[in-house]
């Protein structure tokens, strides 16, 4: 028996899961609804496969459990529907009132679910251990949540870089009550910020999350990365974006944090390590420039460093 292999196991399994996604898409097509597909990000009805090993593992687990559930549903709902059709009073079905108990059957349908659960739990446990392993990170960034913006403070190679990231002006105008601006005309409505977080690809980035006021949560679906930012405590999170997957990735605060909870997006600009190095140098130069003439100029003339896009 011949086995068709992909270039590597990864692509093979990814193809299998994509097959699943297509089946799901067919169900939706049956509902008569258009389905959008975008590279790397969610297709509008399912989790994104994402651009980190973690997001791919999560996607694989998600689809595995999804298909197990579909399998169980087909069997259980199938039996139910069969019973609903076959044993109708109106069709003269006669009840079998002696069928009230069967220890054997009940033991079987207790054991089988346990086995299925173990099958699900083992790979999930492996991913848990991997996602909590924040050792050997190459770049650490301290992320602080505020009502309603994010602060990014770089450590390691980016030591000293420190800026706030708030909702872009366009989105902010459009999102006001009765603004009269059609959100569809605003590029990346509610998912754009003034200063995105910039990180290098192929690098293990560790975030240290905390908050200055209430609980927030930092989430970028394409990284499979979500963690709460809790005041007074530091949570850790890591991800490593695949080389070649440079680009802009977007997410949102996911923990209700007050009035403008829906308006503090997260944007991550992933660059090649070289471009990242250049960006860090620019930032540091800007920092120096801002610091140097401080003695000569009046305070109002000081220029705060900003990130460049």
């Amino acid at each position: 028996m011949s086995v068709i292999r992909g270039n590597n196991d990864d692509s093979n399994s990814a193809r299998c899961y994509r097959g699943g996604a297509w089946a799901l898409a067919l169900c939706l097509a049956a509902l008569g609804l258009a389905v959008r597909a975008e590279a790397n990000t969610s297709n509008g009805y399912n989790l994104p496969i994402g651009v980190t090993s973690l997001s791919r593992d999560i996607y694989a687990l998600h689809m595995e459990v999804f298909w197990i559930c579909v399998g169980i549903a087909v069997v259980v709902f199938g039996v139910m529907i069969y019973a609903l059709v076959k044993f109708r009073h109106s069709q003269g079905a006669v009840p079998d009132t002696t069928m009230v108990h069967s220890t054997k059957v009940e033991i079987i349908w207790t054991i089988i679910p346990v086995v299925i659960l173990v099958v699900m739990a083992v790979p999930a446990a492996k991913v848990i251990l991997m996602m909590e392993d924040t050792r050997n990170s190459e770049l650490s960034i301290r992320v602080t949540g505020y009502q309603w913006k994010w602060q990014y403070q770089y450590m390691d190679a980016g030591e000293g870089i420190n800026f706030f990231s708030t909702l872009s002006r366009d989105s902010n105008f459009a999102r006001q009550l009765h603004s009269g601006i059609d959100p569809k005309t605003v590029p990346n409505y509610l998912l754009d910020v003034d200063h995105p977080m910039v990180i290098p690809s192929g690098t293990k980035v560790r975030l240290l999350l905390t908050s200055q006021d209430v609980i927030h949560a930092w989430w970028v679906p394409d990284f499979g990365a979500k963690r709460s930012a809790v005041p007074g405590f530091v949570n850790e999170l890591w991800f490593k974006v695949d080389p070649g997957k440079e680009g802009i990735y977007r997410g949102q605060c996911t923990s209700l944090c007050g009035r403008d909870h829906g308006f503090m997006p997260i944007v991550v600009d992933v660059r090649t390590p070289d471009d990242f190095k250049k960006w860090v140098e620019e930032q540091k130069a800007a920092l120096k420039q801002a610091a140097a003439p401080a003695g000569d100029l009046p305070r109002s003339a000081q220029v705060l460093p900003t990130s460049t896009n």
Partner: protein
Amino acid sequence: MANAHVSDTAHHDDHHDQPATGIKRWLFATNHKDIGTMYLVFSLIMFFIGGSMAMVIRAELFQPGLQLVDPGFFNEMTTNHALIMIFGAVMPAFVGLANWMIPLQVGAPDMALPRMNNFSFWILPFAFTLLLSTLFVPGGAVAGGWTLYPPLSEQSGDAFPMLIFAVHMMGASSIMGAINVIVTIMNMRAPGMTLLKMPLFAWSWLITAYLLIAVMPVLAGAVTMLLTDHFFGTSFFNAGGGGDPIMFEHIFWFFGHPEVYIMILPAFGIISEILPTFSRKPLFGATSMIYAIASIAFLSFIVWGHHMFADGMPEAAQLFYMMSTMLIAVPTGVKVFNWTATMWRGSLSFEPPMLFAIAFLFLFSIGGFSGLMLAIVPADFQYNQTYFVVAHFHYVLVPGAIFGIMAGVYYWLPKWTGHMYNMTLAKTHFWLSAIFVNVLFFPQHFLGLAGMPRRIPDYAVQFTDWNMVSSIGGFAFGLSQILFPILIIQCVRGGKKASAEVWDGTHPTGLEWTLPSPAPYHSFGTAPEIR
């Protein structure tokens, strides 16, 4: 479940078999049927108030951009929609059903503690008046989510202490209701009715009552600590004073997870009554059904951490909560399989209660599947706090708990009123509800997976289509519910006389069917004998 044989069904000669007249009948009610009715009417009113808040939410989410309400008010709506639906609609509805049906099912003349019964009901209108009045105080109602996580909940205005007092009152009411159920079941069962012969609805409520007594004080403690943090300078949850905001989440969800089962176990009981009746066949594996409810109740105490995976938790705790949560699927599976086996080789007819019970089976199972997915910790990191979670818990609460309640009402309404209701209207209500509940909540799975966080008043444009579908489903579902009170009022006023058995030819088991319809004001003055 046990085949009941009643030696004495004549209760008509009871010399004070007349309710008091006018407002006194309700204000000073000690009759379990009157109190049950008040609970049910109250919960129906709350269902529509909470539902109108949901309509505001769905209207604002119909399209991107803010068209109708301020984001702060939107948060007040989500918070109070949840509080009212959970504490005002679902829980009192189950207490109402317990009041009506437990004495009838166990052959008792009334609840064991009738005056406490009156008190536990009459607290509720005051508690919810207080809660609803917070919408009009300076600073608006509490807008930090029904989970009341600090420090956000501490940012509320005058509404904060009012809400906490309202929660204390609801808790006191629930605890009293639970004590009443336990005392009634433990002491007032008819001679010969052993616990294992007791109907499943009474069983599910007995276990629910213990859950209530165990966890409502925990909620009371949690909100009291919030109160002292806010007004008396303590630092239970204030990191600045050495406290821990995550500790609140632990305490809250130690209450909150059993609370989830408080809202579904009595529905399990109702479904276990209805399926055998309309399958014309005894419940399959009745004893294992009881053990399954008890196992679910036990497990509900050790899974609370699954609400907090993304808040930072050691690996060992993540593994423990994942596995304990997955374990709940086993007894739940047993229940679903037993219900299916009950229908198997039965003789099924599809009266409205059966239709709701069947919809419960399918749609609650869908909520169970998404629950299983949510238990998988790494995947939960992606699902957590998104619309996937919203879809999940609405599937278990609306076509789960609420369809369970509606199934129960449609099942016992003729017993309560003595009239059959309009079957066509009831079936119309069923089909509209069953179709639109899916239009409303199924797309929310897609929204969550595609990345839409929950509790947001406005969203990025790629979420527009599914939100529109969901909102249309929401409006249609909301409108269809208006049929329900219309049908109930019609049925109270008149209609075809119901027989004692009500569902002729199905031979429903249980003592309630040995009484005439409507059940006499005082029933079982002489205890029936169970053989």
